[in-house]
C-alpha cells in the first residue's frame, strides 16, 4: 500500500513550499520502508491513502484507518535515544496490533495535547509509560466495545488480538471495520492493563523504524531545513564569554558576494546575556566568509584574566568552607576518632557536548507570528522562548521539530532559536543560524567542572564515617546573589550505602563560565569521586572492592542483584589473569541501577581498557536492543570524558577549537563491551545514560588495581601511567 503524507499549515501560507515538496518526496521513500521522515510539526497531519479509507483518531496518539492501517504518534523528539520506537511499542502492546505493521509519525509539538515533550534526563519512558499504556488500552477497549455493541454481546466475551476483535463464538471484526464506531465512544478512564507476563511487544529487541532513513540520507535534521526566501547566518561571538560588543566594522564583510546584512544579536544563557554579530547571506559559505572579514572590538571586562588554573585555585580555596549540608546521617564529627582516616580530592574539567550536528535553528518571524524548524530536545520551551522574546502569544508560534544529530542536554537549551528569531526579526526574512564546530566548542555551555573533597574513616573493615563535599557551579543558579548550594550539586552521590555517619555538602561556585545539562549531568563528576573514594576506602579496609560495596548494600536488593550479576559475568572471584587490572563501580541514574567492571592491560607500555562489562537494571525494559545501544554509547562518551580530554580555559577563553585538539574516542580505541540487562517487573526507568558515569571510576579503579597509581584528576593521561 502506498500512502502520501501531507501537512496542513497552521499559519496561513507559511508552509514552506520547497520543504513541503521535499517532505512529500522523502515520505514516499520512507513509507516504502514503513517509516516517516522524522519531522514533527504544527498543524494536523493528515494522510491521503490512494487505496481509499478514512482515518479516525481514538486519541492523540492513535489513528486507525477504515482499511486497517494503524498510525501511532510519537510525541518525543528523537536524538538517538530510541524513544521513536519505544513509545509506539508501548502503545502497540496495549492496543493489540502487529507491531511490524504499525506506522510511526512524529506528533505535533503541542503541550496541550501531549504534555511536556522535552527529552531530558532519560525521562520519556520513565514518565510516559503509564500514560501510554492507558492510551493504548483505552483505544483497545473502545474497539472491543464497538464490536460488542455491533454484535449485541457483552464486551467481556470479546478479546482483541493483532488488529482484530474476536468474539468467543469465533466471529471477528478488524480494527478498520470497527474504528468509526469506536471513535464515537467515550474513552474509558481506567481501562484494564495487561500483566507484564503477557507482554508480546515490550521486552522484544524490535528493529528501530528510524534506522533505514538513517542509512540512505533521508532522515531530516535541523541543519537540512530549507524554507523559501531563507537566509543563512553565521555569528561571531566573543571568545571570552560575556564579552560585550563595543563596536564593529562590517565594511569588508558586506563586500563579500552573497552577504545581505550584518546585525548585532544576542541570546540568553542561563541568565547571562551573550552578544554577537551576525553576518547574513544567501548561502552559508558566504555568511562564513563575511564573518571572517568582520572587525569587532569586544569589552571583556577583565574576564580575560581567568583560566582553568585561576578557577581551580578559587575552588581549592573555597573547599575550606564548611558548605551547605545536602544530605546527612549520624554524626560526622567522629572523623579523626577511631580508625584510619582517608582523605582525597578529585578534579574534573569542563566538557563540551559536541553533538555531531552543530547547533542550528531556522526561524521565520513575520507579522506577529513566528515559526521554528530544527532539532530540539525542548519544542515546548522554544515556543515559550519565542513568544516571550517577541511579545506574542504562544499560539502564534509554530514549532517543527526534526531528528536531532545528538542532543546530550545541549539541545534542551533554547538560545540558538532565540538568536535565529532575533536575526529574522531584524532582517525580515526566515533565517537559518548555523554554528561552526568552533562556535560549539568555544561558546559552551559546558558540563560543569568540579572539585570533590572526600574524607572518611574505616575501622574493623567497615566505613564508619564518610564526608563528600562538592565544589562546583550549579546549573539552576548561575546568576544573582544567592550563594547557597542546592541539591542539584549532589547528583550521583550514592547515599544508599549503609554508612553510620555521613554528610554530603556543597560549596557553590558562581562565575562567568557557562554550564548546562550534559548527559548524566553531575553524576559524571560526583560518581568519579564517590566511587573512586569507595575504592580507596575498600583498599584501606583491606577488602575486595565489590564485596565491600555488597556489604554496605545488604538491604538494597537491586544494587545487590546488579553487583552479584556483575561478579558472575566477569568471573570476579576466579583468579585474575596476569597483567590485568579490574575496577568496579555502581550508581543509580534516572532510576536505573548500573554496575560496571572495566579491565585494563598494558600493551606496548601503555595502559588501555580491554573489556567493559555492564549490568543494568532499568526495570521493565521496553526494547533491550535500544538499552544495549544506549549503554554502549554511554560507555564511549564516558571513555572520551575520562581520558581523551577536557575543556581548558586560557586567557578567559576555551583553548581548544575543533576535533583536532578536543579529541573523541575513535572506532579503533573502542574496547569490546558486554551489556547484561536484569529482568524484573519493576516500573521502567531511564536508560539513556546507563553507565556513562560508571566509566571514570571503573577505569581509574582498574588503573589502580593494575599499577597502584590512584587517579584523582581527569582527564586521565593513559599514556603517562607508569
Amino acid at each position, binding site marked *: 500500500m502506498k500512502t502520501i503524507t501531507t501537512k496542513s499549515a497552521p499559519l496561513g501560507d507559511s508552509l514552506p513550499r520547497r520543504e513541503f515538496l*521535499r517532505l512529500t518526496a522523502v515520505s514516499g521513500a520512507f513509507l516504502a520502508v514503513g517509516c516517516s521522515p522524522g519531522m514533527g510539526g504544527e498543524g494536523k497531519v493528515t494522510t491521503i491513502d490512494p487505496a481509499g479509507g478514512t482515518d479516525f483518531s481514538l486519541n492523540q496518539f492513535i489513528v486507525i484507518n477504515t482499511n486497517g492501517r494503524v498510525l501511532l504518534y510519537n510525541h518525543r523528539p*528523537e*536524538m*538517538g*535515544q*530510541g524513544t521513536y520506537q519505544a513509545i509506539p511499542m508501548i502503545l502497540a502492546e496495549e492496543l493489540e496490533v502487529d507491531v511490524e505493521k504499525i506506522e510511526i509519525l512524529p506528533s505535533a509539538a503541542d503541550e496541550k495535547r501531549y504534555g511536556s515533550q522535552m527529552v531530558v534526563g532519560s525521562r520519556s519512558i520513565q514518565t510516559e509509560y503509564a500514560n501510554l499504556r492507558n492510551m493504548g488500552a483505552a483505544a483497545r477497549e473502545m474497539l472491543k466495545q464497538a464490536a460488542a455493541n455491533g454484535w449485541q454481546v457483552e464486551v467481556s466475551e470479546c478479546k482483541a488480538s493483532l488488529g482484530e476483535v474476536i468474539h468467543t463464538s469465533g466471529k471477528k471484526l478488524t480494527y478498520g471495520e470497527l474504528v468509526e464506531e469506536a471513535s464515537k465512544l467515550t474513552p474509558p478512564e481506567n481501562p484494564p492493563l495487561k500483566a507484564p507476563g503477557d507482554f508480546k511487544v515490550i521486552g522484544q529487541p524490535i*528493529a*528501530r523504524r*528510524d*534506522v*533505514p*532513513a*538513517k*542509512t*540512505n*540520507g*533521508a*532522515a531530516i*535534521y535541523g*541543519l*537540512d531545513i*530549507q524554507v523559501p526566501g531563507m537566509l543563512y547566518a553565521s555569528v561571531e561571538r566573543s571568545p571570552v564569554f560575556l564579552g560585550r560588543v563595543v563596536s564593529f566594522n562590517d565594511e569588508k564583510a558586506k563586500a563579500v*558576494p*552573497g552577504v545581505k546584512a550584518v546585525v548585532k544579536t544576542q541570546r540568553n544563557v542561563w541568565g547571562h546575556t551573550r552578544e554577537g554579530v551576525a553576518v547574513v547571506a544567501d*548561502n*552559508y*559559505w*558566504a555568511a562564513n566568509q563575511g564573518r571572517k572579514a568582520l572587525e569587532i572590538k569586544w569589552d571583556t571586562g577583565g574576564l580575560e584574566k581567568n583560566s582553568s588554573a585561576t578557577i581551580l585555585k578559587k575552588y581549592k580555596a573555597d573547599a575550606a568552607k564548611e558548605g551547605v549540608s545536602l544530605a546527612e546521617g549520624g554524626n560526622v564529627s567522629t572523623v579523626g576518632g577511631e580508625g584510619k582516616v582517608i582523605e582525597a580530592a578529585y578534579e574534573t574539567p569542563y566538557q563540551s557536548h*559536541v*553533538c*555531531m*550536528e*552543530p547547533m542550528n535553528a531556522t526561524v521565520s518571524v513575520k507579522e506577529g507570528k513566528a515559526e521554528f524548524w530544527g532539532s530540539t530536545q525542548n519544542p515546548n520551551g522554544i515556543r515559550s522562548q519565542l513568544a516571550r522574546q517577541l511579545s506574542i502569544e504562544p499560539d502564534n508560534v509554530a514549532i517543527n521539530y526534526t*531528528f*536531532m*544529530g*545528538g542532543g*546530550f542536554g545541549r539541545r534542551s537549551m533554547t538560545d540558538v532559536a532565540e538568536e535565529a528569531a532575533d536575526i529574522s526579526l531584524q532582517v525580515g526574512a526566515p533565517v537559518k543560524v*548555523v554554528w*561552526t*564546530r*568552533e562556535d560549539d566548542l568555544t561558546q559552551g555551555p559546558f558540563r560543569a567542572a568540579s572539585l570533590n573533597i572526600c574524607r572518611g574513616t574505616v575501622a574493623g573493615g567497615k566505613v564508619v564515617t564518610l564526608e563528600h563535599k562538592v565544589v562546583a557551579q550549579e546549573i539552576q543558579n548561575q546568576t544573582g546573589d544567592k550563594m547557597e548550594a542546592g541539591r542539584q550539586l549532589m547528583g550521583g552521590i550514592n547515599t544508599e550505602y549503609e554508612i553510620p555517619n555521613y554528610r554530603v555538602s556543597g560549596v557553590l561556585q558562581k562565575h562567568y563560565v557557562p554550564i548546562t545539562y550534559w548527559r548524566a549531568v553531575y553524576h559524571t563528576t560526583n560518581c568519579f569521586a564517590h566511587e573512586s573514594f569507595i575504592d580507596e576506602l575498600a583498599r584501606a579496609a583491606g577488602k575486595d572492592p565489590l564485596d565491600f560495596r555488597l556489604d554496605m548494600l545488604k538491604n538494597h536488593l537491586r544494587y545487590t542483584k546488579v553487583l552479584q550479576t556483575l561478579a558472575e559475568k566477569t568471573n570476579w572471584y576466579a583468579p585474575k589473569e596476569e597483567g590485568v587490572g579490574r575496577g568496579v563501580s555502581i550508581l543509580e541514574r534516572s532510576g536505573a541501577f548500573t554496575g560496571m567492571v572495566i579491565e585494563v592491560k598494558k600493551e606496548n607500555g601503555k595502559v588501555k581498557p580491554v573489556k567493559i562489562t555492564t549490568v543494568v537494571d532499568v526495570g521493565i525494559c521496553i526494547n533491550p*536492543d535500544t538499552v544495549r*545501544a544506549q549503554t*554502549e*554509547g*554511554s*560507555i*564511549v*562518551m564516558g571513555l572520551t570524558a575520562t581520558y581523551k580530554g577536557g575543556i581548558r580555559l586560557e586567557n578567559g577563553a576555551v583553548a581548544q577549537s*575543533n*576535533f*583536532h585538539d578536543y579529541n*573523541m*574516542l*575513535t*572506532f*579503533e580505541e*573502542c574496547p*569490546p563491551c558486554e551489556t547484561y540487562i536484569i529482568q524484573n517487573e519493576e516500573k521502567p526507568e531511564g536508560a539513556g545514560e546507563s553507565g556513562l558515569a560508571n566509566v571514570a571510576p571503573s577505569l581509574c579503579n582498574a588503573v589502580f588495581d593494575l599499577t597502584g597509581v590512584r587517579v584523582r584528576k581527569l582527564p586521565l593521561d593513559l599514556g603517562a601511567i607508569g
Partner: protein
Amino acid sequence: MASLTLRINNRDYPMEVDPQMPLLWAIRDFALLTGTKFGCGISQCGACTVHIDGEPVRSCVTPVSGATGKSITTIEGLSADNDHPVQQAWQEEQVPQCGYCQSGQIMTAAALLSKHPKPSEEQINAYMSPIICRCGTYVRIKRAVDKAVEINQKA
C-alpha cells in the same frame, strides 16, 4: 562567482557559486542533497565523506572547483533501494542512534569494501577510525563492517 556543473549521483547540477566554496556546501545548499553532513569543516570528523570517482573524499575541505568534471557519489546515490551491502549490514546490526554521522561512516565503509573486499583488521581500522561518532556506535559499526563484507562476498 562562477557557473559550473557538478555531476552528482549520475545527474548534472548546474550552479552559480564561488569556486573556492567547499563541495559540502554545494552538495547541501545548492544541489539540495542533505544526506551529506557538516560536522567540523576541517576534515577531522568524516561526516561529510562522499566519493569522487570512487575515492572517499572529505567534501568539507574540497573546493567545488576540484570536483567539476568528476563523478560524485553521495549517500543518496550509493544504492537505489537502500540495499548496498553496507546499508543492509547497518540496518541488520541496528547501527545508527542519532544517525547524523552515519552517511560518512557508510560511505567510508563502502569505499573500504570496494578497495579491499576482504579487509584486514588494520585496513578496517585505517578506514573507519577517522570517522567520529559521538553517540558511540563503534561496537555496532565493527559488527556491521564484518557483516557487510559477508553480504558483499555472497552477492
